[in-house]
C-alpha cells in the first residue's frame, strides 16, 4: 500500500519574519517542517492535514553551531541532527544523544529543532487512517476516548525526543520567535505533561535557537529501545552533574524522558544526591526516588510494566556513568 501525502502547499521563506507571517496568516492551517521526518509520516497517515507546510531550511540564521563570546554553545534549530552528532563544539553528551536518534538516513534529514518539537507518540495515534477509524478516534485524534486509559480524560501520548532530556539536564535555554517578537525560555518550561497540548508554544511561534551554557561537569544519556537503531526511546535518562575531588555531588540535574508526555525532572532524586557521594547505596536510593512516581502507559513497543521496571535501571546506569 502506498501512503501518499495529502495535497498541501510547500513554502520556503528566506527570513524568519516571512516564516512567522505565513504561519500567523494561516489560521492554524500551516505547520513547520524542520526536516519533515516526524511530520511527513503523520501526514501520510492523515493524523494531520495542513494546507501549508513551512520549511525553515532556507533561513540562513537558523543553521549552524557556534560558541559565543561568553562560552555558550548556540545551535540553530535547523541544524541537521547528523551535524549535531558530528560536532566538536557541542558538549559530548549532546553529540552522543544525537547519534542515537533514529537512523543514519534520518539523522541526515532531521533537525535539532524538529527533535525538540517532536510530536508525542502513541500506539493508538501513530496508525493509518483506516485503523484509527475502525477502532474509533482517540482524544489526540479528535475523538472522545483515550484508548490507553479509557476512563481518564487526558491523552497519554509519549514525549519521545532524545535531545530534550539532555538539553534540560544541561540547563539549556530555547529562543522562540513569533508575531509578538522574540522570547527566551528555559528548555524545561517548553514541555507540558499532556499528550495533546505538549508544548508551551503557539502554532505561529518558531523555535530558532538552543543555547547551552558552558558546562565543565560530567554528563550522560542512557536510552532504552528495542533495537540499537531506528527506534524511539522507551526510557531515556539524561544526567549532568558537578562532582568535587572526592566525588561528592555539588549539583546535579536528572531528567527522565519517554515515560510521560513531557521529559520529567527528577527533583527529589536531585535533592537527595546533592552533598552525597555516588556510592551504590546512594545510586539505588536516587533511582528509586527518580522512578517511583513514574507511570508509563501501555502505549509503545513494550508493556508499561517493563518500562516502569527499566526506569530505575536506566537511572542507575546514568548515575554510574557520572561516577566512572
Amino acid at each position, binding site marked *: 500500500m502506498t501512503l501518499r501525502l495529502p495535497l498541501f502547499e510547500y513554502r520556503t521563506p528566506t527570513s524568519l519574519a516571512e516564516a512567522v507571517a505565513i504561519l500567523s496568516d494561516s489560521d492554524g492551517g500551516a505547520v513547520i517542517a524542520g526536516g519533515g521526518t516526524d511530520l*511527513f509520516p503523520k501526514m501520510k497517515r492523515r493524523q494531520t492535514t495542513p494546507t501549508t507546510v513551512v520549511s525553515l531550511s532556507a533561513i540562513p540564521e537558523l543553521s549552524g553551531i557556534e560558541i559565543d563570546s561568553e562560552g555558550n554553545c548556540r545551535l540553530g534549530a535547523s541544524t541537521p541532527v547528523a551535524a549535531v552528532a558530528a560536532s566538536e563544539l557541542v558538549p559530548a553528551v549532546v553529540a552522543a544523544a544525537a547519534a542515537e536518534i533514529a*537512523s*543514519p*538516513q534520518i539523522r541526515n*534529514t532531521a533537525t535539532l529543532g524538529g527533535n525538540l518539537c517532536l510530536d508525542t507518540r502513541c500506539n493508538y495515534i501513530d496508525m493509518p487512517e483506516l485503523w484509527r477509524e475502525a477502532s474509533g478516534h482517540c482524544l489526540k485524534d479528535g475523538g472522545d476516548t483515550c484508548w490507553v486509559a479509557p476512563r481518564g480524560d487526558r491523552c497519554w501520548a509519549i514525549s519521545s525526543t532524545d535531545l530534550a532530556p539532555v538539553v534540560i539536564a544541561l540547563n539549556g535555554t530555547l529562543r522562540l520567535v513569533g508575531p509578538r517578537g522574540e522570547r527566551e525560555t528555559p528548555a524545561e518550561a517548553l514541555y507540558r505533561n499532556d499528550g495533546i497540548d505538549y508544548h508551551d508554544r503557539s502554532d505561529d511561534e518558531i523555535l530558532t535557537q538552543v543555547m547551552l551554557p558552558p558546562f565543565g561537569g560530567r554528563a550522560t544519556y542512557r536510552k532504552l529501545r528495542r533495537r540499537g537503531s531506528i527506534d524511539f526511546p522507551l526510557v531515556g535518562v539524561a544526567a549532568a552533574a558537578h562532582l568535587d575531588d572526592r566525588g561528592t555531588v555539588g549539583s546535579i540535574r536528572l531528567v527522565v524522558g519517554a515515560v510521560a508526555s513531557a521529559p520529567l525532572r527528577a527533583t527529589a532524586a536531585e535533592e537527595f544526591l546533592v552533598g552525597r557521594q555516588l556510592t551504590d547505596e546512594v545510586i539505588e536510593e536516587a533511582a528509586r526516588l527518580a522512578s517511583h512516581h513514574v507511570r508509563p502507559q501501555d502505549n509503545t513497543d513494550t508493556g508499561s510494566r517493563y518500562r516502569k521496571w527499566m526506569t530505575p535501571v536506566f537511572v542507575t546506569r546514568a548515575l554510574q556513568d557520572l561516577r566512572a
Partner: protein
Amino acid sequence: MSERVLTIEVNGEPHRILSSDNRTLLEVLREDLGLTGTKHGCDVGECGACSVLMDGQPVLACLVLALQVGDRTVTTIEGLAADGNPDPVQKAFAERGAAQCGYCTPGMIISSRALLDGNPDPSTEEINTALAGNLCRCTGYNKIVEAVHLAASREARP
C-alpha cells in the same frame, strides 16, 4: 495546490518534471523517471529500502519531497554503475551472495557506498553503524557486512 516544474539532477542528468508539492522524491524517481531500483518499503522512514544519496549523504526518498532536493544531486542505485560496470560494492554483494530476497539490497548498497566514500577502511562496527538504518527482513546481515569489507579491501588496493 498548483503544480510546478522542478529540475532535479539524478545520476548526473538533469530532469524537468511537473509535480504537485506533496510528491516525494521516491514517487518521482519510481513513477516519473522509471528508476525502480530504489525500493518502496514502509513509506514512513523505518526500513531504509528507499535510501538514495543526496549530495553523497544517504537519505530516505520516502521522507524527502521532490521539491526539497533543490540544487542538490541525487544518486540512486542505477547511478552507481559507471559505463555498464557495476560499482565495486555491487560486485562484492553479488560475489558474496549478500542478498536473499533482494528488496533491501539497493538501500544497503547505497548506505555502504556512502560509508566507503567517507571511510575507505571501516571496521565491522563502523559498517554496522552505517547500515543501522537499513533493515533486512531475511536477516542476512553477515554476508552484507562481509561484502562491504570485500569492497573496501579491493578499493584500498592502488
